[in-house]
């Protein structure tokens, strides 16, 4: 019998050299005439340990990492194929404290299964939710999602069940299910990890949504920066036809536009147009893709649904705190020692995430700021690290959790420069439909440049910046323009010394 060895094929693992490690293991095994079965799994999310090689030992999966090709002969010498001891051995993967302290619901199969194997998926409970849903009335499926308390994970945290109910209640011969896999926020990669590591769960969640609202066609809009996720989804779709029944899914690839993550711009893009934001109303739930009622949800939102159906709404709602129910896969990114994906129920503090999981900065210098929730998210100072990780607590300090991305930054940072970047990013990515965003962002860059140069021009430039931000907040059609002031103003408020 051959031993199964796992070497992740996830993009982050590949970027850290996983392919060369996989090749070295295959060659070394062949040379030693040891029979192995090599599986390219997703990543467990402990990015700092990638390439993380696992061996299926009788007592569980044993982890070794980070492994380089040069380590491979030594690993064989140490008998790692039988779980043998070696300097790189980390013990049982599930018992690595960083993993053991998490509560993985939506990411429970990511890094565990072979993402190309429907059999693996089914063996770990995949398909149960869809089977249940097929025996339920559409309204009951929607009720289960509503009762779970699941809120959209793409950023706006709108209750998923309410959106589905609107689509269900809108009669139409054709409706659509659209998955937002644009994941444009810097510091986020949970959608990517899930699509590459457990694609069937996303497909299942979309098929359940189709049953719930009466839609037979789905689209997944994936950013062009994610070719590996596109390949993983297409590979899964190629074997999932029977499994999905009458529901059809097509993968659409974006083209390097951040604002196409905004849901109406995304619909325009799928329709083959420029990604210009639509005015709301009408809501996409009523007049969406090709003018038809459309459910739009994030990858993690859809992927959370199968287990909610299979295990019941209460099992999901039991996690979390306040009005933030369930778990959120947080992503520890930037200048952080132990970066990766931490799925935990809402309720821990930012500090626990940054230090207990993240281990502080990678550079060894003090963390001075973190940006939470992507390029439209606030810069938070150390004094706010004790904020509880839930939607309401973050809203109360003028911040947001967004898609759960956390970018850690050490004390070499210049927050005025970061504020400039936020304006610059808005200027580059603005869809151009409204003036406060299109022109305001460019003016914003100029004002910040003057502040940084100490060039007053006889006017208080800080006041000018505040006014400009005010105009953007109140005069922009979508959150691109109305939220760009959040990173800018939070930087100014919490780090005024950088604006002198």
């Amino acid at each position, binding site marked *: 019998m051959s031993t199964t060895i796992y070497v992740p094929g996830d*993009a*982050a693992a*590949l*970027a*850290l050299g996983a392919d060369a490690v996989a090749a070295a293991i295959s060659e070394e095994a062949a040379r030693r005439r040891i029979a192995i079965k090599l599986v390219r799994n997703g990543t467990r999310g402990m*990015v*700092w340990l*990638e390439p993380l090689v696992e061996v299926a030992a009788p007592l569980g999966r044993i982890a070794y990492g980070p492994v380089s090709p040069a380590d491979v002969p030594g690993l064989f010498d140490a008998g790692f194929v039988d779980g043998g001891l070696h300097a790189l051995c980390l013990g049982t993967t599930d018992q690595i404290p960083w993993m053991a302290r998490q509560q993985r619901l939506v990411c429970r199969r990511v890094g565990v299964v072979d993402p190309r194997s429907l059999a693996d998926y089914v063996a770990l409970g995949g398909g149960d939710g869809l089977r249940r849903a097929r025996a339920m009335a559409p309204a009951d499926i929607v009720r289960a999602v509503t009762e779970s308390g699941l809120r959209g994970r793409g950023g706006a945290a709108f209750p998923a069940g309410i959106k589905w109910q609107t689509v269900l209640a809108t009669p139409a011969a054709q409706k659509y299910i659209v998955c937002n896999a644009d*994941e*444009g*926020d*810097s*510091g*986020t*990669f949970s*959608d*990517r990890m899930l699509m590459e590591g457990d694609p069937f769960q996303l497909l299942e969640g979309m098929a359940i949504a189709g049953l719930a609202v009466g839609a037979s066609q789905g689209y997944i809009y994936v950013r*062009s*920066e*994610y*070719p590996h*996720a596109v390949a993983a989804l297409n590979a899964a779709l190629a074997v999932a036809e029977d499994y999905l029944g009458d529901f059809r899914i097509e993968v*659409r*690839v*974006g*083209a*390097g*536009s*951040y604002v196409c993550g905004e849901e109406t711009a995304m619909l325009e*893009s*799928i*329709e*083959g*147009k*420029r*990604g210009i934001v639509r005015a709301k109303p009408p809501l996409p739930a009523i007049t969406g893709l*090709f003018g038809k009622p459309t459910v739009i949800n994030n990858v993690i939102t859809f992927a959370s649904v199968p287990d909610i159906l299979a295990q019941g709404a209460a099992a999901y709602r039991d996690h979390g705190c306040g009005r933030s129910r369930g778990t959120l896969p947080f*992503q*520890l*990114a*930037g*200048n*952080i020692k132990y*970066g*990766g994906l931490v799925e935990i129920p809402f309720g821990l503090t930012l500090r626990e995430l940054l230090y207990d999981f993240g281990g502080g900065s*990678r550079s060894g210098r003090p963390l001075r700021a973190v*940006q939470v929730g992507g*390029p439209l998210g606030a810069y938070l100072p150390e004094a706010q690290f004790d904020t509880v990780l839930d939607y309401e607590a973050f809203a109360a300090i003028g911040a947001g959790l967004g898609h759960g*991305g956390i*970018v*850690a*930054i*050490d004390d070499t*940072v210049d927050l005025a420069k*970061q504020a400039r*970047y936020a304006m610059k*990013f808005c200027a580059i*990515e603005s869809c151009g439909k409204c003036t406060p965003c299109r022109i305001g962002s460019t003016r914003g860059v100029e004002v910040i440049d003057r502040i940084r140069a100490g060039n007053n021009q006889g006017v208080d430039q800080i006041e000018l910046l505040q006014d400009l931000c005010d105009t953007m907040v109140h005069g922009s059609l979508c959150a691109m323009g109305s939220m760009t002031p959040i990173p800018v103003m939070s930087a100014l408020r919490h780090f005024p010394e950088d604006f002198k």
Partner: protein
Amino acid sequence: MEKPTTIERIFAAHRDQPGALLPVLHEIQHLLGYIPPESVPLIAKELNLSRAEVHGVISYYAHFRQTPPGRHVVRVCCAEACQAGGGEALAEHARSRLEGSDVTLEPVYCLGLCACGPSVQGDETTLHAQVTPKKFDALVAALEAKP
């Protein structure tokens, strides 16, 4: 002529697809490395769109090129998570290293490798994490040596 046949095949494959323009443009760019301006009238005709619509879409999206790139393309992430790990210095180094090279440098805003930045993508297929200037030079040298 060989190229038009391939392009004809692309159109045939997408003729009945709703909203086919982006998928068609992706395939053309995949084939040629860019979308030649002279192909706009053909695309417009085949997809029953106006030239202005086609041109508008090509120029709107950062991913689509209107001029041919160098023999290879490297994309350096310029977003916040990579900045926090030294991305800016890397981007600057990349600019000076690639001056005059036939490897094209493009900025990219996030590759989803935010826990192991700064990150770089080579030719849309190869990914590199924790890229230092030294590592960058090595990966560029490897690309330059490739046909």
